């Protein structure tokens, strides 16, 4: 009687060094069908669920138009027709980005979207909102016109009064430009990616159950809200 083939899956599971560990961990946390799903629960068929992805679409336009502005420089965005257009595109994509993000926030707040172990999803979204405000603020400071001078001189007293003026000097154009085009966009980008991955991992938050049902899941959800 032939011997059964040796099971090597357990041995292979432990090989591969740190790259193998990362691969196994990534596949366990984000199975492909969960990372890139082609179906969503029926309750997702509502316009209120559209604003999250609309915010990401606006963010892509913000990054692309900002990249063009960085390539061509202020003489171009202040002194040419196409430069004015791309400058306006950057401004209005930011307006839409912020407006859609706030509507997304309203929707998720009234759904109590932190239910069901989704606290970190909520936190990454809230912190990315705050980081986006900082990015927009430093954008106002780096327009290189009278408005940016006005905003910076108005803001410096408030920031000095809370003790961060020495480290975040709104009158230092170079520092504000670096915050605007490197540090804060990087932070917002990392937070948005983490936010989307967490949504993929835990799924879209379901609506509240009807009040007259005694679903044990609803009790769990209520517990999560209270926690």
């Amino acid at each position, binding site marked *: 009687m032939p011997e059964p083939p040796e099971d090597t899956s357990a041995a292979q599971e432990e090989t591969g060094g740190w790259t193998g560990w990362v691969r196994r961990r990534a596949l366990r946390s984000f199975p492909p069908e969960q990372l890139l799903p082609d179906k969503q629960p*029926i309750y997702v*068929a509502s316009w209120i669920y559209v604003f999250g992805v609309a915010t990401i679409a606006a963010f892509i336009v913000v990054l692309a138009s900002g990249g063009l502005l960085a390539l061509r420089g202020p003489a171009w965005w202040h002194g040419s*027709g196409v430069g004015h257009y791309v400058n306006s595109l950057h401004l209005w994509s930011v307006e839409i980005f912020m407006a859609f993000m706030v*509507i997304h926030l309203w929707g998720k707040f009234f759904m109590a979207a932190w239910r069901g172990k989704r606290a970190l999803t909520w936190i990454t979204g809230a912190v990315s909102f705050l980081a986006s405000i900082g990015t927009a603020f430093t954008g106002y400071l780096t327009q290189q016109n009278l408005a940016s001078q006005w905003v910076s001189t108005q803001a410096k007293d408030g920031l000095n009064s809370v003790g961060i003026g020495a480290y975040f000097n709104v009158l230092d154009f170079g520092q504000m430009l670096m915050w605007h085009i490197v540090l804060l966009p990087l932070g917002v980008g990392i937070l948005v990616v983490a936010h989307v991955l967490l949504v993929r991992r835990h799924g879209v938050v379901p609506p509240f159950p009807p009040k007259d049902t005694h679903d044990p899941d609803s009790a769990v959800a209520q517990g999560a809200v209270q926690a």
Partner: protein
Amino acid sequence: MRFAFLPLSPINLDHPGRYVHWGVIQISVANLVLILLMVLLFAAAILLPFPGTRRRK
């Protein structure tokens, strides 16, 4: 430089902004209109049916 084929803005923006004062609250009319539009959009997103919902049921 202005594109000659573009029409002028339908709203004259060449003046200081108008503000609404309500107690300690002071907000520009432009920002107030924007917030009202966002609230309307939020209400519409809740109330309007999503395309294809009936078919999926």
